Protein backbone atom coordinates (compact mmCIF):
# COMPACT_ATOMS: atom_id res chain seq x y z
CA UNK A 1 0.00 0.00 0.00
CA UNK A 2 2.74 2.40 0.99
CA UNK A 3 4.70 1.58 -2.09
CA UNK A 4 1.79 2.19 -4.34
CA UNK A 5 1.16 5.52 -2.70
CA UNK A 6 4.71 6.59 -3.20
CA UNK A 7 4.59 5.54 -6.79
CA UNK A 8 1.46 7.52 -7.34
CA UNK A 9 3.04 10.72 -6.02
CA UNK A 10 3.72 12.73 -9.13
CA UNK A 11 6.74 14.90 -9.72
CA UNK A 12 4.55 17.93 -9.23
CA UNK A 13 3.50 16.84 -5.76
CA UNK A 14 7.08 16.04 -4.84
CA UNK A 15 8.23 19.43 -5.98
CA UNK A 16 5.50 21.21 -4.10
CA UNK A 17 6.48 19.34 -0.93
CA UNK A 18 10.09 20.39 -1.43
CA UNK A 19 8.89 23.93 -1.94
CA UNK A 20 7.06 23.82 1.38
CA UNK A 21 10.20 22.44 3.04
CA UNK A 22 12.19 25.39 1.74
CA UNK A 23 9.80 27.96 3.13
CA UNK A 24 8.94 26.01 6.27
CA UNK A 25 11.00 27.99 8.82
CA UNK A 26 9.56 31.24 7.60
CA UNK A 27 6.04 29.85 7.50
CA UNK A 28 6.22 28.79 11.15
CA UNK A 29 7.68 32.15 12.12
CA UNK A 30 5.10 34.08 10.18
CA UNK A 31 2.18 32.30 11.77
CA UNK A 32 3.77 32.34 15.19
CA UNK A 33 4.89 35.96 15.32
CA UNK A 34 3.23 38.00 12.60
CA UNK A 35 -0.19 36.49 11.98
CA UNK A 36 -0.81 36.00 15.67
CA UNK A 37 0.44 39.46 16.58
CA UNK A 38 -1.60 41.06 13.84
CA UNK A 39 -4.67 39.27 15.09
CA UNK A 40 -3.92 40.52 18.58
CA UNK A 41 -3.48 44.07 17.25
CA UNK A 42 -6.87 43.92 15.59
CA UNK A 43 -8.25 42.63 18.85
CA UNK A 44 -6.65 45.53 20.72
CA UNK A 45 -8.08 48.02 18.25
CA UNK A 46 -11.60 46.79 19.02
CA UNK A 47 -11.09 46.82 22.76
CA UNK A 48 -9.97 48.96 25.59
CA UNK A 49 -6.76 47.53 26.98
CA UNK A 50 -5.69 47.95 30.57
CA UNK A 51 -2.34 46.62 31.70
CA UNK A 52 -2.55 44.82 35.02
CA UNK A 53 0.06 45.72 37.61
CA UNK A 54 1.11 42.07 38.01
CA UNK A 55 1.80 41.61 34.28
CA UNK A 56 -0.72 40.61 31.68
CA UNK A 57 -3.66 42.68 30.56
CA UNK A 58 -7.44 42.73 30.36
CA UNK A 59 -9.53 43.58 27.33
CA UNK A 60 -12.95 45.22 27.36
CA UNK A 61 -14.75 44.92 24.07
CA UNK A 62 -15.86 48.34 22.86
CA UNK A 63 -16.65 47.68 19.20
CA UNK A 64 -15.67 50.38 16.74
CA UNK A 65 -15.39 53.13 19.32
CA UNK A 66 -11.63 53.51 18.76
CA UNK A 67 -12.08 53.83 15.00
CA UNK A 68 -14.83 56.37 15.35
CA UNK A 69 -12.72 58.33 17.79
CA UNK A 70 -9.68 58.32 15.49
CA UNK A 71 -11.58 59.56 12.45
CA UNK A 72 -14.22 61.81 14.00
CA UNK A 73 -12.79 63.21 17.20
CA UNK A 74 -9.00 63.03 17.10
CA UNK A 75 -7.57 66.42 16.16
CA UNK A 76 -4.59 65.65 13.97
CA UNK A 77 -4.78 62.00 12.88
CA UNK A 78 -6.51 62.49 9.53
CA UNK A 79 -4.33 65.43 8.59
CA UNK A 80 -1.08 63.66 9.48
CA UNK A 81 -2.19 60.56 7.61
CA UNK A 82 -2.94 62.43 4.38
CA UNK A 83 0.24 64.52 4.46
CA UNK A 84 2.46 61.51 5.02
CA UNK A 85 0.84 59.63 2.15
CA UNK A 86 1.20 62.69 -0.07
CA UNK A 87 4.87 63.08 0.80
CA UNK A 88 5.46 59.42 0.12
CA UNK A 89 3.85 59.58 -3.32
CA UNK A 90 6.08 62.53 -4.22
CA UNK A 91 9.23 60.90 -2.90
CA UNK A 92 8.92 57.49 -4.51
CA UNK A 93 9.54 58.42 -8.17
CA UNK A 94 12.20 60.96 -7.17
CA UNK A 95 14.16 58.48 -5.08
CA UNK A 96 13.82 55.66 -7.59
CA UNK A 97 15.10 57.65 -10.53
CA UNK A 98 17.74 59.43 -8.53
CA UNK A 99 19.14 56.14 -7.28
CA UNK A 100 19.06 54.52 -10.72
CA UNK A 101 20.88 57.53 -12.10
CA UNK A 102 23.49 57.41 -9.35
CA UNK A 103 23.94 53.65 -9.72
CA UNK A 104 24.68 54.08 -13.42
CA UNK A 105 27.15 56.85 -12.63
CA UNK A 106 28.86 54.74 -9.98
CA UNK A 107 28.90 51.58 -12.05
CA UNK A 108 31.38 53.09 -14.51
CA UNK A 109 35.02 52.59 -13.77
CA UNK A 110 36.77 55.64 -12.42
CA UNK A 111 39.37 56.44 -9.82
CA UNK A 112 38.16 56.39 -6.24
CA UNK A 113 35.02 54.44 -7.08
CA UNK A 114 35.26 52.32 -3.96
CA UNK A 115 35.49 55.43 -1.83
CA UNK A 116 32.52 57.08 -3.48
CA UNK A 117 30.41 53.97 -3.06
CA UNK A 118 31.35 53.77 0.58
CA UNK A 119 30.25 57.38 0.97
CA UNK A 120 26.90 56.74 -0.65
CA UNK A 121 26.31 53.88 1.71
CA UNK A 122 26.98 56.09 4.72
CA UNK A 123 23.38 57.26 5.28
CA UNK A 124 22.35 53.60 5.45
CA UNK A 125 25.02 52.86 8.03
CA UNK A 126 24.14 55.90 10.05
CA UNK A 127 20.40 55.36 10.29
CA UNK A 128 20.55 54.46 13.94
CA UNK A 129 18.59 56.69 16.28
CA UNK A 130 21.39 58.14 18.40
CA UNK A 131 23.71 58.71 15.46
CA UNK A 132 20.97 60.43 13.48
CA UNK A 133 20.30 62.80 16.34
CA UNK A 134 23.99 63.65 16.57
CA UNK A 135 24.10 64.26 12.82
CA UNK A 136 21.09 66.52 13.00
CA UNK A 137 22.80 68.49 15.74
CA UNK A 138 26.01 68.73 13.77
CA UNK A 139 24.03 70.04 10.83
CA UNK A 140 22.43 72.80 12.84
CA UNK A 141 25.50 73.60 14.93
CA UNK A 142 27.74 74.31 12.01
CA UNK A 143 26.60 77.53 10.48
CA UNK A 144 27.90 78.34 7.04
CA UNK A 145 30.24 76.09 5.12
CA UNK A 146 29.27 72.49 4.96
CA UNK A 147 25.83 72.52 6.43
CA UNK A 148 24.84 75.62 4.53
CA UNK A 149 23.93 73.51 1.52
CA UNK A 150 21.09 71.77 3.28
CA UNK A 151 20.21 74.79 5.39
CA UNK A 152 19.91 76.98 2.31
CA UNK A 153 17.72 74.42 0.65
CA UNK A 154 15.48 74.29 3.68
CA UNK A 155 15.16 78.06 3.65
CA UNK A 156 14.35 77.98 -0.04
CA UNK A 157 11.44 75.63 0.51
CA UNK A 158 9.78 78.19 2.75
CA UNK A 159 10.33 80.82 0.11
CA UNK A 160 13.03 82.92 1.79
CA UNK A 161 16.04 81.99 -0.33
CA UNK A 162 16.53 84.91 -2.71
CA UNK A 163 18.48 83.02 -5.33
CA UNK A 164 16.03 80.12 -5.48
CA UNK A 165 13.18 82.62 -5.71
CA UNK A 166 14.85 84.06 -8.77
CA UNK A 167 14.90 80.68 -10.50
CA UNK A 168 11.31 80.00 -9.61
CA UNK A 169 10.32 83.33 -11.16
CA UNK A 170 12.39 82.51 -14.21
CA UNK A 171 10.64 79.18 -14.64
CA UNK A 172 7.21 80.69 -14.26
CA UNK A 173 8.16 83.37 -16.79
CA UNK A 174 8.94 80.53 -19.16
CA UNK A 175 5.34 79.46 -18.83
CA UNK A 176 5.78 76.26 -16.85
CA UNK A 177 2.68 75.36 -14.86
CA UNK A 178 2.86 76.16 -11.16
CA UNK A 179 2.38 72.55 -10.08
CA UNK A 180 5.49 71.41 -11.94
CA UNK A 181 7.56 74.30 -10.57
CA UNK A 182 6.36 73.46 -7.09
CA UNK A 183 7.28 69.82 -7.57
CA UNK A 184 10.76 70.65 -8.83
CA UNK A 185 11.50 73.24 -6.19
CA UNK A 186 10.17 70.88 -3.55
CA UNK A 187 12.47 68.16 -4.85
CA UNK A 188 15.45 70.51 -4.83
CA UNK A 189 14.74 71.70 -1.33
CA UNK A 190 14.55 68.11 -0.06
CA UNK A 191 17.65 66.98 -1.94
CA UNK A 192 19.51 66.08 1.21
CA UNK A 193 16.59 63.95 2.43
CA UNK A 194 16.38 62.25 -0.94
CA UNK A 195 20.09 61.53 -0.99
CA UNK A 196 19.98 60.16 2.52
CA UNK A 197 16.99 57.99 1.73
CA UNK A 198 18.41 56.40 -1.42
CA UNK A 199 21.50 54.61 -0.15
CA UNK A 200 19.99 51.14 -0.18
CA UNK A 201 18.30 51.66 -3.50
CA UNK A 202 21.61 52.67 -5.08
CA UNK A 203 23.28 49.51 -3.78
CA UNK A 204 20.45 47.32 -5.07
CA UNK A 205 20.66 48.97 -8.46
CA UNK A 206 24.44 48.57 -8.62
CA UNK A 207 24.06 44.86 -7.86
CA UNK A 208 21.41 44.69 -10.57
CA UNK A 209 23.56 46.49 -13.11
CA UNK A 210 26.48 44.20 -12.41
CA UNK A 211 24.38 41.10 -12.92
CA UNK A 212 23.54 42.14 -16.47
CA UNK A 213 25.64 39.90 -18.74
CA UNK A 214 28.32 41.82 -20.60
CA UNK A 215 27.54 39.90 -23.77
CA UNK A 216 24.30 41.87 -24.10
CA UNK A 217 26.21 45.11 -24.25
CA UNK A 218 28.65 43.59 -26.72
CA UNK A 219 25.81 42.60 -29.00
CA UNK A 220 24.27 46.04 -28.69
CA UNK A 221 27.59 47.67 -29.57
CA UNK A 222 28.15 45.41 -32.57
CA UNK A 223 24.65 46.10 -33.81
CA UNK A 224 25.47 49.79 -33.62
CA UNK A 225 23.20 50.89 -30.80
CA UNK A 226 23.87 54.29 -29.29
CA UNK A 227 24.32 54.73 -25.56
CA UNK A 228 20.78 56.06 -25.32
CA UNK A 229 19.33 53.04 -27.10
CA UNK A 230 21.47 50.65 -25.09
CA UNK A 231 20.09 52.15 -21.91
CA UNK A 232 16.44 51.83 -22.87
CA UNK A 233 16.71 48.47 -24.64
CA UNK A 234 19.22 46.63 -22.44
CA UNK A 235 19.89 48.27 -19.10
CA UNK A 236 16.39 49.44 -18.24
CA UNK A 237 14.51 46.19 -18.97
CA UNK A 238 17.14 44.18 -17.11
CA UNK A 239 16.90 46.46 -14.09
CA UNK A 240 13.09 46.62 -14.01
CA UNK A 241 12.55 43.71 -11.58
CA UNK A 242 14.79 45.54 -9.15
CA UNK A 243 12.81 48.73 -9.63
CA UNK A 244 9.89 46.94 -8.02
CA UNK A 245 12.13 45.95 -5.11
CA UNK A 246 13.26 49.51 -4.73
CA UNK A 247 9.79 51.02 -4.95
CA UNK A 248 8.58 48.61 -2.30
CA UNK A 249 11.54 49.45 -0.14
CA UNK A 250 11.09 53.21 -0.59
CA UNK A 251 7.39 53.15 0.22
CA UNK A 252 7.92 51.02 3.30
CA UNK A 253 10.89 53.00 4.50
CA UNK A 254 9.18 56.35 4.12
CA UNK A 255 6.20 54.96 6.01
CA UNK A 256 8.32 53.51 8.78
CA UNK A 257 9.75 56.96 9.51
CA UNK A 258 6.52 58.84 8.91
CA UNK A 259 4.64 60.95 11.41
CA UNK A 260 1.78 58.46 11.56
CA UNK A 261 4.04 55.89 13.17
CA UNK A 262 5.34 58.48 15.62
CA UNK A 263 1.79 59.45 16.46
CA UNK A 264 0.84 55.83 17.03
CA UNK A 265 3.93 55.30 19.17
CA UNK A 266 3.17 58.37 21.28
CA UNK A 267 -0.45 57.37 21.66
CA UNK A 268 0.60 53.96 22.95
CA UNK A 269 3.46 54.87 25.26
CA UNK A 270 2.83 58.45 26.32
CA UNK A 271 -0.94 58.35 26.58
CA UNK A 272 -1.18 54.60 27.24
CA UNK A 273 -4.05 54.37 24.77
CA UNK A 274 -3.15 51.04 23.16
CA UNK A 275 -6.47 50.61 21.40
CA UNK A 276 -6.29 53.94 19.60
CA UNK A 277 -2.65 53.33 18.72
CA UNK A 278 -3.56 50.00 17.14
CA UNK A 279 -6.26 51.72 15.11
CA UNK A 280 -3.76 54.25 13.79
CA UNK A 281 -1.12 51.74 12.83
CA UNK A 282 -3.64 49.35 11.30
CA UNK A 283 -5.20 52.10 9.19
CA UNK A 284 -1.86 53.28 7.87
CA UNK A 285 -0.75 49.70 7.25
CA UNK A 286 -3.83 48.91 5.20
CA UNK A 287 -3.42 52.10 3.17
CA UNK A 288 0.25 51.37 2.49
CA UNK A 289 -0.62 47.87 1.33
CA UNK A 290 -3.21 49.25 -1.06
CA UNK A 291 -0.77 51.75 -2.55
CA UNK A 292 1.89 49.07 -2.93
CA UNK A 293 -0.47 46.68 -4.67
CA UNK A 294 -1.47 49.37 -7.15
CA UNK A 295 2.12 50.42 -7.90
CA UNK A 296 3.37 46.84 -8.22
CA UNK A 297 0.57 45.84 -10.57
CA UNK A 298 1.45 48.85 -12.67
CA UNK A 299 5.15 48.02 -12.92
CA UNK A 300 4.83 44.24 -13.07
CA UNK A 301 2.82 44.46 -16.27
CA UNK A 302 5.81 46.05 -17.91
CA UNK A 303 8.45 43.81 -16.35
CA UNK A 304 10.44 41.30 -18.30
CA UNK A 305 11.98 38.32 -16.51
CA UNK A 306 15.08 36.85 -18.01
CA UNK A 307 13.91 33.26 -17.66
Amino acid sequence: MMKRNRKRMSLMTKRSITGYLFILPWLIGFIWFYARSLFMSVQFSLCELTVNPGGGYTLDFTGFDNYIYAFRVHGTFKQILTTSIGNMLIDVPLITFFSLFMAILLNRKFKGRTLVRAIFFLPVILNSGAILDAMELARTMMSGGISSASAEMAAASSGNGASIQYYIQMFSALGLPDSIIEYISGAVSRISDIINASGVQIIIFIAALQSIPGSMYEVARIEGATAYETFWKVTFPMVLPHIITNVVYTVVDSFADSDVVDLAYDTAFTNNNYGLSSVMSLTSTVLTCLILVIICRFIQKRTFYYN
Partner: protein
Amino acid sequence: MEKAEQKQKFSLKAIQDKYQEIKADTQFANDRKRWASNIKKFILGVFRLVIIVGICYVILGPVIGIISSSFFSDADNYNTMVYLIPQEPTLERYQLAIKYLDYGKTLISSLAYSLSLMLIQVFICSMVGYGFARYKFPLKNLLFACVVVMIVIPTHTIMLPLYMSFAKFDVFGIIKLLKGSSVNLLSTPVPMYIMTFFGCGLRSGLYIYIFNQFFRGLPKEIEEAAFVDGAGTWYTYFRIMLVNAIPSVITVAIFSMVWQYNDTFYAKLFLISDDIVISKKISTIQATISNVEKIYDPNIQELYLDAGVVLIMIPIIIIYVALQKYFIEGVERSGIVG
Protein backbone atom coordinates in the same frame (compact mmCIF):
# COMPACT_ATOMS: atom_id res chain seq x y z
CA MET B 1 32.24 102.55 -35.11
CA GLU B 2 32.05 101.61 -38.76
CA LYS B 3 35.51 100.29 -38.62
CA ALA B 4 34.71 98.03 -35.73
CA GLU B 5 31.67 96.72 -37.56
CA GLN B 6 33.72 96.09 -40.61
CA LYS B 7 36.33 94.34 -38.55
CA GLN B 8 33.70 92.14 -36.95
CA LYS B 9 32.20 91.34 -40.30
CA PHE B 10 35.60 90.52 -41.57
CA SER B 11 36.40 88.28 -38.67
CA LEU B 12 33.00 86.57 -38.86
CA LYS B 13 33.55 85.93 -42.50
CA ALA B 14 37.00 84.64 -41.78
CA ILE B 15 35.64 82.22 -39.21
CA GLN B 16 32.98 81.04 -41.63
CA ASP B 17 35.55 80.55 -44.33
CA LYS B 18 37.82 78.70 -41.98
CA TYR B 19 34.94 76.48 -40.89
CA GLN B 20 34.03 75.64 -44.48
CA GLU B 21 37.64 74.94 -45.22
CA ILE B 22 37.99 72.59 -42.29
CA LYS B 23 34.72 70.90 -43.13
CA ALA B 24 35.77 70.37 -46.72
CA ASP B 25 39.15 69.03 -45.68
CA THR B 26 38.92 65.26 -45.52
CA GLN B 27 42.53 64.61 -44.72
CA PHE B 28 42.22 65.10 -40.97
CA ALA B 29 38.60 64.02 -40.57
CA ASN B 30 39.51 61.19 -38.23
CA ASP B 31 41.64 63.42 -36.05
CA ARG B 32 38.82 65.91 -35.77
CA LYS B 33 36.32 63.26 -34.83
CA ARG B 34 38.62 61.91 -32.20
CA TRP B 35 39.19 65.40 -30.88
CA ALA B 36 35.44 66.03 -30.73
CA SER B 37 34.77 62.79 -28.93
CA ASN B 38 37.59 63.53 -26.49
CA ILE B 39 36.02 66.90 -25.72
CA LYS B 40 32.68 65.21 -25.24
CA LYS B 41 34.22 62.68 -22.89
CA PHE B 42 35.95 65.42 -20.94
CA ILE B 43 32.75 67.43 -20.51
CA LEU B 44 30.85 64.33 -19.41
CA GLY B 45 33.64 63.51 -16.98
CA VAL B 46 33.53 66.98 -15.45
CA PHE B 47 29.75 66.76 -15.23
CA ARG B 48 29.97 63.42 -13.45
CA LEU B 49 32.69 64.67 -11.13
CA VAL B 50 30.66 67.73 -10.15
CA ILE B 51 27.57 65.67 -9.39
CA ILE B 52 29.43 63.03 -7.42
CA VAL B 53 31.49 65.52 -5.43
CA GLY B 54 28.43 67.64 -4.72
CA ILE B 55 26.38 64.73 -3.45
CA CYS B 56 29.24 63.33 -1.42
CA TYR B 57 29.52 66.78 0.15
CA VAL B 58 25.88 66.76 1.20
CA ILE B 59 26.27 63.31 2.75
CA LEU B 60 29.64 63.87 4.36
CA GLY B 61 28.93 67.35 5.73
CA PRO B 62 27.50 66.35 9.10
CA VAL B 63 29.95 63.47 9.43
CA ILE B 64 32.90 65.79 9.01
CA GLY B 65 31.26 68.09 11.53
CA ILE B 66 30.98 65.28 14.06
CA ILE B 67 34.55 64.11 13.54
CA SER B 68 36.04 67.58 13.81
CA SER B 69 34.05 68.56 16.88
CA SER B 70 35.02 65.32 18.61
CA PHE B 71 38.56 66.77 18.76
CA PHE B 72 37.50 70.17 20.07
CA SER B 73 38.76 71.26 23.45
CA ASP B 74 36.57 73.41 25.70
CA ALA B 75 38.29 76.57 24.54
CA ASP B 76 37.76 75.68 20.90
CA ASN B 77 34.11 75.07 21.52
CA TYR B 78 33.57 78.53 23.04
CA ASN B 79 35.73 80.32 20.49
CA THR B 80 33.48 81.36 17.63
CA MET B 81 36.47 81.89 15.35
CA VAL B 82 37.30 78.20 15.35
CA TYR B 83 35.69 76.40 12.46
CA LEU B 84 36.21 72.72 11.69
CA ILE B 85 39.92 72.70 12.52
CA PRO B 86 40.44 72.85 16.30
CA GLN B 87 43.14 75.16 17.62
CA GLU B 88 43.99 72.99 20.60
CA PRO B 89 42.97 69.48 19.58
CA THR B 90 42.38 67.07 22.44
CA LEU B 91 41.86 63.34 22.76
CA GLU B 92 40.12 63.69 26.09
CA ARG B 93 36.67 63.20 24.52
CA TYR B 94 37.75 59.85 23.15
CA GLN B 95 39.35 58.74 26.39
CA LEU B 96 36.17 59.30 28.35
CA ALA B 97 33.93 57.93 25.61
CA ILE B 98 36.00 54.73 25.43
CA LYS B 99 35.94 54.42 29.19
CA TYR B 100 32.19 54.83 29.57
CA LEU B 101 31.29 52.80 26.50
CA ASP B 102 33.64 50.03 27.71
CA TYR B 103 34.51 50.15 24.06
CA GLY B 104 36.59 47.03 23.35
CA LYS B 105 34.39 44.58 25.22
CA THR B 106 31.07 46.04 24.11
CA LEU B 107 32.20 46.28 20.53
CA ILE B 108 33.28 42.65 20.35
CA SER B 109 30.08 41.31 21.84
CA SER B 110 28.01 43.67 19.69
CA LEU B 111 29.78 42.52 16.54
CA ALA B 112 29.45 38.86 17.52
CA TYR B 113 25.74 39.41 18.13
CA SER B 114 25.09 41.04 14.76
CA LEU B 115 27.41 38.70 12.88
CA SER B 116 25.70 35.57 14.16
CA LEU B 117 22.28 37.03 13.38
CA MET B 118 23.52 37.98 9.93
CA LEU B 119 24.60 34.40 9.18
CA ILE B 120 21.21 33.07 10.25
CA GLN B 121 19.46 35.72 8.18
CA VAL B 122 21.39 34.90 5.01
CA PHE B 123 20.89 31.16 5.44
CA ILE B 124 17.17 31.24 6.19
CA CYS B 125 16.16 34.07 3.89
CA SER B 126 17.98 32.70 0.85
CA MET B 127 16.32 29.34 1.41
CA VAL B 128 12.87 30.85 1.67
CA GLY B 129 13.47 33.15 -1.28
CA TYR B 130 14.61 30.17 -3.35
CA GLY B 131 11.56 28.15 -2.35
CA PHE B 132 9.29 30.96 -3.48
CA ALA B 133 11.17 31.61 -6.69
CA ARG B 134 11.51 28.08 -7.99
CA TYR B 135 8.77 25.83 -6.65
CA LYS B 136 5.10 25.77 -7.41
CA PHE B 137 2.88 24.81 -4.52
CA PRO B 138 -0.67 25.50 -3.50
CA LEU B 139 -1.33 28.89 -1.88
CA LYS B 140 2.03 30.18 -3.11
CA ASN B 141 0.75 33.58 -4.17
CA LEU B 142 -1.10 34.06 -0.92
CA LEU B 143 2.00 33.11 1.09
CA PHE B 144 4.18 35.44 -0.92
CA ALA B 145 1.69 38.19 -0.29
CA CYS B 146 2.33 37.41 3.38
CA VAL B 147 6.04 38.13 2.82
CA VAL B 148 5.11 41.50 1.35
CA VAL B 149 2.77 42.15 4.26
CA MET B 150 5.68 41.40 6.56
CA ILE B 151 7.78 44.04 4.82
CA VAL B 152 5.01 46.58 4.84
CA ILE B 153 3.78 46.34 8.40
CA PRO B 154 5.59 48.85 10.58
CA THR B 155 7.09 46.86 13.42
CA HIS B 156 5.28 49.16 15.81
CA THR B 157 2.02 47.49 14.86
CA ILE B 158 3.03 44.17 16.37
CA MET B 159 5.28 45.55 19.08
CA LEU B 160 2.98 45.04 22.03
CA PRO B 161 1.91 41.46 21.17
CA LEU B 162 5.55 40.47 20.61
CA TYR B 163 6.52 41.88 23.97
CA MET B 164 3.71 40.00 25.66
CA SER B 165 4.53 36.69 24.01
CA PHE B 166 8.24 36.78 24.89
CA ALA B 167 7.55 37.88 28.44
CA LYS B 168 5.62 34.65 28.86
CA PHE B 169 7.36 32.47 26.33
CA ASP B 170 5.91 29.06 25.69
CA VAL B 171 5.62 26.63 22.80
CA PHE B 172 2.23 24.90 22.91
CA GLY B 173 2.54 24.54 26.66
CA ILE B 174 5.60 22.30 26.34
CA ILE B 175 7.89 24.49 28.42
CA LYS B 176 5.24 24.87 31.07
CA LEU B 177 4.95 21.10 31.19
CA LEU B 178 8.70 20.66 31.67
CA LYS B 179 9.51 23.55 33.96
CA GLY B 180 6.23 24.27 35.62
CA SER B 181 5.96 27.82 34.28
CA SER B 182 6.57 29.77 31.11
CA VAL B 183 9.97 31.46 30.71
CA ASN B 184 10.66 35.15 30.58
CA LEU B 185 13.04 35.62 27.66
CA LEU B 186 13.19 39.39 27.88
CA SER B 187 16.49 41.11 28.72
CA THR B 188 18.35 38.35 26.84
CA PRO B 189 19.14 38.28 23.12
CA VAL B 190 17.29 34.95 22.75
CA PRO B 191 14.03 36.46 21.34
CA MET B 192 16.02 38.05 18.54
CA TYR B 193 17.68 34.72 17.67
CA ILE B 194 14.37 32.87 17.73
CA MET B 195 12.67 35.44 15.51
CA THR B 196 15.56 35.54 13.07
CA PHE B 197 15.76 31.76 12.88
CA PHE B 198 12.11 31.61 11.92
CA GLY B 199 12.58 34.18 9.20
CA CYS B 200 10.99 37.04 11.10
CA GLY B 201 14.04 38.97 12.24
CA LEU B 202 14.92 42.55 11.52
CA ARG B 203 13.71 43.24 7.96
CA SER B 204 13.79 39.54 7.04
CA GLY B 205 10.88 40.10 4.70
CA LEU B 206 12.97 42.45 2.63
CA TYR B 207 15.82 39.94 2.37
CA ILE B 208 13.44 37.17 1.32
CA TYR B 209 12.09 39.53 -1.29
CA ILE B 210 15.55 40.38 -2.60
CA PHE B 211 16.56 36.71 -2.82
CA ASN B 212 13.29 35.83 -4.50
CA GLN B 213 13.76 38.49 -7.13
CA PHE B 214 17.32 37.38 -7.71
CA PHE B 215 16.58 33.66 -8.06
CA ARG B 216 13.73 34.43 -10.42
CA GLY B 217 16.22 36.21 -12.63
CA LEU B 218 18.52 33.18 -12.85
CA PRO B 219 18.08 30.86 -15.85
CA LYS B 220 16.30 27.57 -15.14
CA GLU B 221 18.76 25.68 -17.33
CA ILE B 222 21.33 25.59 -14.54
CA GLU B 223 19.03 23.59 -12.29
CA GLU B 224 17.81 21.42 -15.11
CA ALA B 225 21.39 20.54 -15.95
CA ALA B 226 22.08 19.74 -12.29
CA PHE B 227 18.93 17.61 -12.13
CA VAL B 228 19.89 15.71 -15.26
CA ASP B 229 23.36 15.13 -13.83
CA GLY B 230 21.74 13.59 -10.79
CA ALA B 231 22.18 16.30 -8.16
CA GLY B 232 19.61 16.25 -5.38
CA THR B 233 17.48 19.21 -4.41
CA TRP B 234 19.58 20.32 -1.46
CA TYR B 235 22.84 19.73 -3.26
CA THR B 236 21.59 21.83 -6.18
CA TYR B 237 20.54 24.57 -3.82
CA PHE B 238 23.68 24.74 -1.70
CA ARG B 239 26.37 23.98 -4.24
CA ILE B 240 24.94 25.53 -7.38
CA MET B 241 22.22 28.09 -6.76
CA LEU B 242 23.69 29.67 -3.65
CA VAL B 243 27.06 30.03 -5.36
CA ASN B 244 25.35 31.74 -8.25
CA ALA B 245 23.59 34.03 -5.85
CA ILE B 246 26.77 35.37 -4.29
CA PRO B 247 26.12 39.00 -5.32
CA SER B 248 22.80 39.03 -3.55
CA VAL B 249 24.15 37.02 -0.63
CA ILE B 250 26.74 39.72 -0.06
CA THR B 251 24.21 42.50 -0.54
CA VAL B 252 21.95 40.94 2.06
CA ALA B 253 24.87 40.21 4.37
CA ILE B 254 25.97 43.84 4.36
CA PHE B 255 22.45 45.13 4.97
CA SER B 256 21.73 42.62 7.66
CA MET B 257 24.98 43.18 9.50
CA VAL B 258 24.74 46.95 9.48
CA TRP B 259 21.10 47.20 10.40
CA GLN B 260 21.43 44.67 13.15
CA TYR B 261 24.36 46.62 14.52
CA ASN B 262 22.37 49.84 14.37
CA ASP B 263 19.08 48.48 15.57
CA THR B 264 17.82 50.02 18.75
CA PHE B 265 14.13 49.27 18.29
CA TYR B 266 14.24 45.54 18.99
CA ALA B 267 17.00 46.03 21.52
CA LYS B 268 14.74 48.37 23.46
CA LEU B 269 11.64 46.25 22.97
CA PHE B 270 13.29 43.05 24.24
CA LEU B 271 15.30 44.97 26.86
CA ILE B 272 18.53 43.47 25.50
CA SER B 273 21.48 44.52 27.63
CA ASP B 274 23.54 47.59 26.70
CA ASP B 275 26.69 45.48 26.80
CA ILE B 276 25.58 43.49 23.76
CA VAL B 277 24.12 46.31 21.70
CA ILE B 278 26.55 49.18 21.42
CA SER B 279 24.16 51.45 19.54
CA LYS B 280 21.79 51.27 22.47
CA LYS B 281 24.57 52.19 24.84
CA ILE B 282 25.46 55.34 22.88
CA SER B 283 22.05 56.85 23.56
CA THR B 284 22.82 57.04 27.26
CA ILE B 285 26.49 58.05 27.09
CA GLN B 286 25.77 61.76 27.17
CA ALA B 287 23.75 61.45 30.36
CA THR B 288 26.29 59.10 31.95
CA ILE B 289 29.26 61.35 31.30
CA SER B 290 27.48 64.49 32.39
CA ASN B 291 26.40 62.83 35.64
CA VAL B 292 29.63 61.10 36.55
CA GLU B 293 32.09 63.72 35.36
CA LYS B 294 29.93 66.67 36.45
CA ILE B 295 29.85 68.38 33.10
CA TYR B 296 26.84 70.64 32.94
CA ASP B 297 27.25 72.52 29.68
CA PRO B 298 25.17 70.66 27.06
CA ASN B 299 27.46 71.95 24.30
CA ILE B 300 30.43 70.22 25.92
CA GLN B 301 28.38 67.08 26.56
CA GLU B 302 27.70 66.88 22.87
CA LEU B 303 31.40 66.72 22.11
CA TYR B 304 31.58 63.46 24.07
CA LEU B 305 28.56 62.17 22.21
CA ASP B 306 30.30 63.03 18.94
CA ALA B 307 33.37 61.08 19.98
CA GLY B 308 31.19 58.10 20.90
CA VAL B 309 29.38 58.26 17.57
CA VAL B 310 32.71 58.28 15.72
CA LEU B 311 33.81 55.23 17.72
CA ILE B 312 30.63 53.40 16.77
CA MET B 313 30.89 54.34 13.12
CA ILE B 314 34.48 53.16 12.65
CA PRO B 315 34.02 49.35 12.70
CA ILE B 316 30.99 49.40 10.43
CA ILE B 317 32.78 51.52 7.87
CA ILE B 318 35.80 49.22 7.99
CA ILE B 319 33.56 46.18 7.50
CA TYR B 320 31.77 47.80 4.62
CA VAL B 321 34.94 48.83 2.83
CA ALA B 322 36.36 45.32 3.30
CA LEU B 323 33.19 43.65 2.03
CA GLN B 324 33.02 46.05 -0.86
CA LYS B 325 36.01 44.22 -2.32
CA TYR B 326 34.25 40.87 -2.02
CA PHE B 327 31.14 42.45 -3.40
CA ILE B 328 32.87 43.24 -6.69
CA GLU B 329 34.84 39.98 -6.69
CA GLY B 330 31.74 37.94 -6.06
CA VAL B 331 30.04 39.59 -8.95
CA GLU B 332 32.98 38.87 -11.22
CA ARG B 333 33.29 35.27 -10.11
CA SER B 334 29.67 34.56 -10.78
CA GLY B 335 29.88 36.10 -14.21
CA ILE B 336 27.74 33.24 -15.52
CA VAL B 337 24.78 34.89 -13.83
CA GLY B 338 21.96 35.40 -16.29
